[in-house]
């Protein structure tokens, strides 16, 4: 249905409603907003569409935004460290609306039922086609974390997503979790599948031995008579946050000096618009924008922050816009530049939530998705249990999905303490939903899924907590890794994010008794980065536990006691 036709149809519906026809007001209201939401008038002459961190979610899903995303030091009270009402206020979004639902956790279950699922490549494809029709020459950029996050992506070694992105018409991408398929597989995809179709860009990856560049650092295009350049930045800490042995031939890092060199190089080659497609994470991007000059916009990802408007950073060369476009296929960003007289005069930016029942599925993409899922359908749709509570992951300290995983692995392995990694991907399930094997894989589908049981002294437990807390709360963003805090089951602790490295964690207790530095505890976990680690895949452990339970009550989410965070707008 074309936009005009649909509008007419809606007007007719509205008339019917006034005339007293029995129509549910909610869907009507919801549908009525569709045109306002997606009819984005073209602005200027240079256009980018950007999505990031979709984590292989081909189908529409739910995704609850965090209620805890603390900013400390200079990040206090600023985007992206604003949650709930604080975020709505900062970006002038009316509470109780569809947009408020897209950007916050507020009233999540009820709003999710009202507005329906988000994302899905078939719905995304419809929007991309619509925007492309209005914006000839527009480039579609994918920030990475695309080939990982679902069962089908894992089982096909990323192939289902590679083909989906080609069908979607992605022009350029950067990466992070892609590398956990191993450097050989990444190289194979880049050489065989992407060649001549999608530019795989990373200025910050070199060979470990001689420091030779592995991928092109940037790509240049002429768009409506204007030279534009897109530079790629892969996640700088991939070999640290993920197992280094999987990408042992390559070295990463922020490489700020080389970044400036690349910007200067594309400017010298005539680029009038320079965009950085970044997987740094928003805090790192904000710092980089203040130090590297000549970038018009950093289209960012990694930290999964759905930030409605760009942050403008002034630097010695002028200004740089910094964005972050959320995760799980929930959003598509549109950045229009008005370029005249050889420079950017003005811009428009919009982060569009993908509401799957407002955007009809693209037939070709829907057909493709059906085809790749067909051989796995029975396995994906196995109902493991029913959840009575809302299951979500995102948040600095814990989520109910992680609590479920912790409860399961501690129970099965007979552990005192459970550790579950602070990943930011993973979809949300509403209360009363069946938990299928596919849903479990949405939380666990990685190439190093081993579940473990280790004996650790209390001092080692503290060391690990301190180390990860510093990855999250080091006041200098270049020392942060962009994940959330490790989720902890069984024990309690106090966390002071403002304290110095090594002294943020205190009052560690097990069953309400203080833990001892030299006492040995049994710790269950999964996703070890150590190359020698082995163990049953975590989805088998949790899957067995769920089948056994049949019905899972709402989880009691274990979070630390926080110090010094009162009044922080990064916590509900």
């Amino acid at each position, binding site marked *: 249905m074309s936009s005009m036709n649909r509008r007419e149809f809606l007007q007719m519906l509205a008339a019917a409603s006034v005339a007293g026809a029995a129509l549910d007001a909610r869907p009507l209201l919801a549908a009525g907003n569709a045109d306002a939401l997606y009819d984005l008038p073209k602005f200027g002459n240079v256009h980018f569409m950007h999505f990031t961190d979709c984590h292989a979610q081909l189908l529409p899903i739910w995704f609850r935004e965090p209620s805890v995303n603390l900013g400390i030091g200079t990040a206090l009270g600023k985007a992206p460290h604003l949650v709930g009402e604080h975020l709505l206020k900062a970006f002038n979004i009316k509470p109780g609306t569809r947009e408020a639902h897209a950007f916050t956790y507020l009233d999540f279950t009820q709003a999710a039922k009202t507005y329906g699922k988000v994302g899905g490549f078939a719905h995304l494809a419809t929007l991309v086609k619509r925007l492309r029709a209005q914006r000839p020459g527009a480039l579609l950029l994918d920030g990475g974390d695309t080939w990982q996050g679902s069962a089908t992506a894992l089982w096909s070694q990323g192939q289902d997503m590679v083909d989906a992105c080609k069908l979607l018409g992605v022009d350029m991408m950067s990466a992070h979790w892609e590398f956990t398929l191993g450097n050989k597989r990444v190289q194979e995809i880049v050489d065989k599948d992407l060649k001549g179709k999608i530019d795989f860009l990373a200025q910050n990856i070199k060979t470990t*031995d001689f420091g030779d560049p592995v991928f092109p650092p940037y790509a240049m295009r002429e768009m409506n008579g204007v030279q534009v350049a897109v530079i790629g930045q892969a996640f700088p800490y991939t070999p*640290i946050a993920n197992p280094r042995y999987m990408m042992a031939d390559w070295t990463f890092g922020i490489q700020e000096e080389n970044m400036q060199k690349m910007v200067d190089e594309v400017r010298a080659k005539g680029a009038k618009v320079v965009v950085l497609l970044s997987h740094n994470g928003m805090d790192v991007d904000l710092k980089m924008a203040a130090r590297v000059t000549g970038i018009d916009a950093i289209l960012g990802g990694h930290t999964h922050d759905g930030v409605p408007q760009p942050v403008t950073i002034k630097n010695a060369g002028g200004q740089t816009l910094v964005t972050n476009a959320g995760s799980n296929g929930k959003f598509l960003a549109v950045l229009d530049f008005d370029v005249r007289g050889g420079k950017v005069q003005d811009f428009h930016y919009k982060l569009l939530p993908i509401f799957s029942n407002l955007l009809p599925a693209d037939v070709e993409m829907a057909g493709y998705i059906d085809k790749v899922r067909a051989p796995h359908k029975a396995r994906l749709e196995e109902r493991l249990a029913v959840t009575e509570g809302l299951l979500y992951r995102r948040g600095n300290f814990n989520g109910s999905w992680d609590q479920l995983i912790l409860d399961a692995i501690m129970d099965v392995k007979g552990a005192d303490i459970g550790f579950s990694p602070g990943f930011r991907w993973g979809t949300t399930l509403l209360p009363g939903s069946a938990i299928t094997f596919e849903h479990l894989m949405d939380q666990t589908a990685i190439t190093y899924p081993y579940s473990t049981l280790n004996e650790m002294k209390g001092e080692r437990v503290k060391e690990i907590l301190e180390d990860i807390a510093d*990855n999250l709360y080091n006041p200098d963003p270049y020392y942060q890794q962009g994940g959330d805090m490790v989720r902890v089951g069984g024990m309690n602790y106090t966390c002071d994010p403002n304290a110095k490295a090594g002294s943020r964690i205190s009052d560690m207790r097990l069953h309400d008794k203080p833990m001892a530095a030299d006492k040995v505890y049994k710790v269950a976990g999964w996703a070890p*980065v150590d190359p020698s680690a082995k163990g049953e895949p975590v989805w088998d452990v949790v899957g067995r536990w769920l089948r056994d339970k049949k019905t899972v009550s709402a989880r009691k989410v274990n979070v630390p006691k926080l110090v010094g965070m009162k009044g922080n707008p990064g916590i509900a």
Partner: protein
Amino acid sequence: MNTTRRTVLKSATASGVLAGLIAAGALRPTQVLAAEWNKAAFDAHDMPGALKGIGAGATADSKDLILRLPDIAENGAVVPVDVVSTIPNTSSIWILVEKNPSPLSASFDFANGALPEVSARLKMGQTSMVKAVAKADGKFYTAQKEVKVTVGGCGG
């Protein structure tokens, strides 16, 4: 990837690798530079002792001494470091890791006209400040940067 070049470079850089091995303590530097070995400085167990050992009393931070290091080490066992000095008449460069049991990790002397530019690999057991010291015309200049060494995992 240019395999031929790689093979050639592998043999050609054998001498370059030497500095790294000395820094990592794998090769006894006495065997290589017997005459120049500064035992007092390399044996010192803290920063003041090591600085004293190389004769650096008063030092001044200099932006003409460039120290390139990762913010977070990918592998604490081999942390790549580059030091470049554009200070005229630079005659020596030292690299020190504050928290290492013996902070002085490498020492380089430059004969007349040699470019004061070095690369090495440092072994670091924990997060530490890394310091480069350059000597020029009898004066000592410094640059420093913190390198984080972490247990890893849990990102993104």
